[in-house]
């Protein structure tokens, strides 16, 4: 296949589809096995130093924040990360856990750029940034989810983004069109937060699915945190609602308010003061460390975290939630 142009970025997670097939054959049981465990157990068992890891959706929206904080607590190092991230990746950058990035966007949305990203990249602490667009990183996971080595796209062409990515430009042999080929992205481990799951890992998501379906299918290890654990009968009542089937899942963590301070559609709204606290404190390195001390290292579990947030604020988030059309 003649390559017209190659991005000079590093493929920071090389992949082998046959090895992924073998993994999926031998390391992922098809039996209905109970997988419920705590954040501590799940991160200890499945997240290793140096692994390639991703989170879904992002910091303020249906994000596995209780898992993200536990990664910080356990101090996993030299992580290679894809993102697309807001608070969750900021915490990891602030804690110095990240070595390489397949970066699409790390920022604070409404509140502007991420000081943690600036410090981590400009100081060289993050060694490598390989550039992608949001769609491109999702399509890379979709390629892995489909079990194919690449997907073509008409995005990214003609730009420095392509030049600093690891994509390749080829000519479509059917129509002669130039397209960018995006290499499959197989993650070592993914963290996804959902509305409901049974103890085996069958998951339901309400509202938009972001890139959960793609990431779940593109990962060797998948830790799911869930607002609620439901009986399998509920899954079997509506199999057309299963976004992530159990056989993809390695751990099910019961984490009510697991996306706090982000929102969870139809369940609770974002906690604006809590988000602003990070926005303000993270402007300086010291401030970010203080925040980590107060809100992460200093609180051993998600339950203790929620206690510190307090029932009143959580109740306000619930009261302000978006509701379905009556």
């Amino acid at each position, binding site marked *: 296949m003649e390559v017209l142009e190659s991005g000079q970025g590093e493929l920071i997670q090389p992949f082998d589809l046959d090895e992924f097939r073998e993994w999926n054959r031998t390391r992922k049981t098809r039996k209905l096995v109970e997988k419920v465990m705590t954040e501590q157990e799940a991160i200890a068992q499945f997240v290793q130093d140096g692994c390639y890891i991703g989170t879904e959706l992002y910091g303020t*929206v249906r994000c596995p924040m209780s898992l993200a904080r536990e990664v910080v607590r356990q101090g996993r190092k030299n992580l290679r990360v894809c993102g697309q991230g807001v608070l969750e990746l900021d915490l990891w950058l602030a804690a110095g856990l990240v070595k390489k990035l397949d970066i699409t*966007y790390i920022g604070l949305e409404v509140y502007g750029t991420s000081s943690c990203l600036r410090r981590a990249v400009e100081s060289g602490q993050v060694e490598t940034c390989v550039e992608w*667009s*949001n769609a491109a990183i999702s399509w890379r996971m979709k390629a892995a989810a489909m079990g194919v080595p690449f997907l073509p796209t*008409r995005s990214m062409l003609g*730009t*420095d*983004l392509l030049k600093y990515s690891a994509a390749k430009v080829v000519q479509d042999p059917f129509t002669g069109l130039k397209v960018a080929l995006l290499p499959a992205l197989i993650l070592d481990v993914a963290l996804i937060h959902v509305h409901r799951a049974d103890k085996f890992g069958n998951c339901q998501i309400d*509202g*938009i699915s972001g890139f959960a379906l793609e990431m779940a299918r593109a990962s060797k290890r998948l830790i799911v945190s869930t607002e609620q654990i439901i009986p399998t009968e509920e899954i079997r009542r509506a199999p057309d609602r299963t976004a992530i089937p159990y056989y993809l899942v390695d751990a099910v963590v019961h984490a009510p308010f697991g996306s706090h301070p982000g929102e969870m559609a139809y369940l609770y709204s974002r906690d604006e003061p809590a988000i602003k606290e990070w926005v303000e404190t993270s402007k300086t390195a010291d401030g970010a460390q203080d925040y980590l001390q107060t809100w992460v290292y200093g609180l051993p579990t998600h339950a203790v975290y929620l206690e510190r947030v307090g029932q009143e604020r959580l109740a306000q988030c619930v009261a302000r939630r978006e509701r379905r059309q009556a």
Partner: protein
Amino acid sequence: MSAPNYSKTELMICVAARLFEDGATCFIGTGIPMLAAMLASKTTAPNLVPVFEFGGTGAILEELPRAVGEARTFHKGLSALGICDTMESAQRGFVDYGFLGGAQIDPYGNLNTVVIGSHDQPRARLPGSGGGNDVGSLCWRTIAIVQHDLRRFVPKVDFVTTPGYLTGPGAREAAGLPRGSGPMAVVSTLALMDYDPHTCRMRLKALHPGVTVEEVQANTGFDLLLAEQIGVNAPPSAEELRLLRQEIDPERLYI
């Protein structure tokens, strides 16, 4: 009745809102585009179809979304799928407009949101493309919203994150980008710009009230073409301001 007072941000929102075509699909990003989309849907574009990149299409924008994935982006929506669905819809030609921002913009409408300085040793690391490159690549027409100064309007961006017309006429198609797509307008703190169809270079189209051509040129790091007729953008109407202040952003998050 005297003209109401308004801020530069309010004016930009109004000028941007008036660009919306009724009955069009539009990718809406965080910030000013969300306010402009809400304002347009309450004024000249009641049939606007908002598309949010993480999956929401056809939402009714009753409250201002603060993030492109939050529940307000599919509030009473017509579909709520994922980012692949919306981006593939755009790739198929179903998204008419997209809004973009950036730290730098050049005469061809190329935008930079990745780095100031060199990529590998940046003076400033910016957030990255996000959905920006996809919007600029796949939507039919894009509108950039940029603060107007010499740091931002530069002859050459440090990093082409999002394609405008790249190096000029034919460059998008030569790169493989979809035929007939490209930048349409720039709304800045000083003026409204479009692009000359022959050279694909940015062109001053209409000044904000009280702004001169010289002032715009002095704040632009390259030669701005001038439209044959340079208009003046109408200031925000009383009704536009009422909607913005009372219905769209009553908490004054942006305005």
